[in-house]
């Protein structure tokens, strides 16, 4: 089976998932992102003309403010024309199918789609459908993947820890429903992190998760011991209705990240979160705002990483 993300020359054609990409491509994106960070950091030109004359369509079938905004900023800094479409469920309720919507946008001469959709596989479906000169970036599909989030997490880890091959990383929370977790796991294992842990109650872990190459922990104290990086996940409120958890209070008590639990990790461990945070549910405010938190730098790096992804795709033949 051909990898739908790569073209015949092995270059990145679409970014749909961090799974199945060679580490070379991941490192190229991270390297490129760091040039954009340097550029912005020196306070020089914020804007580069790499996507000049190109149209980027942010097509969000699922609501999001933060991710859409960072993509918009990234595209604008690359001098692209940006069109934002919050489709939500309005179009589908009018009877238009996903691919009809995409066809219409293609007819408006889109060069790149940034797509978020509530269903796993939506970005793959679109990528398979569009003409070969159009690029698709998955900005989150169901529980499946959120590759740019994972890449900005990798960028942040590399920024603070320099190397991947000597790290212990723990991902904490609702792995079952999380596209972020899946993309993080694939990115971490591809980049050579020797030990990736997941920490969650059994109701929030998919079956056979260990086959993704992770060690499974149900106990925070054991799982956090001696880790270098703690990746927290957002807990959706609806998990309480689905009988996955009894209460937010109990979840916080056993799986919420507090200073006390964080003390079990290495002294220089960093704490990350994809946002938006539920303070007091998965993370205590003192940790979120504490010295080990790199949650805000994540957001800053997110723009550079998305610029790197877009410019990489635009460079692909």
């Amino acid at each position, binding site marked *: *089976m051909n990898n*739908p993300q790569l073209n015949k020359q092995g270059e990145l054609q679409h970014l749909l998932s961090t*799974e199945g990409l060679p580490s070379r491509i991941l490192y190229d994106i991270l390297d490129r992102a760091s040039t954009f960070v340097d550029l912005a950091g020196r306070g020089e030109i914020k804007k580069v003309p790499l996507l000049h004359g190109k149209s980027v369509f942010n097509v969000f079938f699922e609501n999001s403010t933060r991710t859409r905004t960072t993509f918009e900023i990234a595209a604008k800094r690359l001098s692209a024309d940006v069109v934002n479409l919050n489709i939500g469920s309005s179009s589908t309720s009018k009877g238009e*199918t*996903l*691919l009809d919507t995409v066809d219409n946008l293609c007819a408006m001469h889109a060069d790149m789609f940034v797509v978020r*959709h509530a*269903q*796993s*596989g*939506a970005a*793959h*479906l679109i990528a398979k459908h569009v003409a070969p000169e159009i690029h698709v970036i998955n900005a989150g*599909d*169901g*529980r*499946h*993947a959120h590759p740019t989030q994972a890449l900005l997490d990798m960028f942040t880890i590399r920024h603070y820890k320099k190397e991947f091959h000597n790290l212990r990383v723990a991902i904490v929370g609702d792995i079952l429903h999380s*596209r972020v977790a*899946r993309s993080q796991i694939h990115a971490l294992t591809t980049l050579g992190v020797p030990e990736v842990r997941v920490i969650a109650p059994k109701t929030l872990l*998919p*079956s*056979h*998760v260990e*086959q*993704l190459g992770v060690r499974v922990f149900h106990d925070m104290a054991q799982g956090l011991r001696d880790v270098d990086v703690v990746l927290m996940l957002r807990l959706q409120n609806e998990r309480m209705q689905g009988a996955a958890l009894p209460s937010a209070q109990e979840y916080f008590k056993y799986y919420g990240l507090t200073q006390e639990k964080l003390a079990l990790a290495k002294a220089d461990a960093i704490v990350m979160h994809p946002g938006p945070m539920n303070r007091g549910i998965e993370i205590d405010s003192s940790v979120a705002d504490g010295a080990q938190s790199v949650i805000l730098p994540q957001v800053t790096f997110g723009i550079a990483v998305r610029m790197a992804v877009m410019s990489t795709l635009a460079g692909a033949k």
Partner: protein
Amino acid sequence: MNIQILNGRLIDPKNEVDAAKDIFITAGKILAIGKAPAGFVAEKTIDAAGLVIIPGLIDLAARLREPGYEYKATLESEMSAAVAGGITSLACPPDTEPALDEPGLVEMLKHRARALSQAKVYPVGALTYGLKGVELTEMAELADAGCVAFSQADAPLTDTRVLMRAMQYAATFGFGVWLRPQDSFLARDGVAHDGEVATRLGLPAIPVCAETIALAIMLQLARETGVRLHICRLSSAAGVAMIREAKKGGLAITCDVSMNHIHLSEMDIGYFDSNCHLIPPLRNQRDRDALRVGLHEGVIDAICSNHSPVDEDAKQLPFAEAEAGATGLELLLPLVLKWAQQGKLTISDAIAKVTHNSAQILNIDAGHLSLGAAADVCIFDPASCWKVEAAALMSQGKNTPFLGMEMQGKVRYTLVHGQIVYQAMQNNK
């Protein structure tokens, strides 16, 4: 019409025949096998040199989509597909719109099918009104109208008391009850096997215990009620083990599997191939292997196409939203032959699972070529290879996981009641 089929290899599992024999047909029945009876004058001769002659296939699950879903398929399109696949009898599940829960609907379906004079249609009636799992249908009336068994198709029946009553009532009249085991709570929102692939792709999953828990309830109620229970579309190794035990314990049940599930596994979903969105879900390779062993041992009695034509638009959606189902009528024979070849079975042992055994489950006199039997015959070229292509399929449903794959074994002629109802276009061998 008097027809003679000469020079072919006759394979008839029920009568344990596998030899070069000529067949002579008159008035819709098998008149003689081997030598032409004195005075027999053939009006039509089929030269079957290099071809195999078998009883017409009997498919235990073929959705014709009428009434109600004519945009997916029509009786005309699907009946043509059936005979093109060598199928001469088929059972259709009751999940039409409305469901087959009224004698009038059943009579209409039988009438429409008869008017097409192609394959014989055996409707399976709804076990409960509207397949809602609440009130029993008028099973005796439905049987008089032509229903051969009663089923919930893929609709849940969660109320175990209703299920027990339904079985008791069916048992009163000796009717068969056909059920697909799946606990609807455990399977809720699920679209793929709860395994490695669903975990990787982030697809809502259906665990194996959804099958085994429902199966345990069904087997226990069959013991209690003495109903003639047929288990449809088994999907898991654990399910096979339970059926094996139940049969060993003397419970008179039968069981089928879909052709998709003996050839495919969750791995075939690949990158969200919605053609592999099937009911039940494709499970892992160990499950597939166990289904094959179960078939071989006779734990599973029959193979069906589980033909479920879906319109193209309904498949052009993200995996979970795409409608489940695949076309199958024209692939049943080659996929059974493929299984035979891979499992080192004789053609006779393999096709028993789609002829004689299926007839026994349906409780009809068919699926064999005995003297005096209805001349429902399939004649195929065992060496002919062909590629599955959407445009070439007669079925209105064009979606199947086997698109683009090479098949071996092509139907040349299909006869129903001694009438040639299908003849392949390129007949030059």
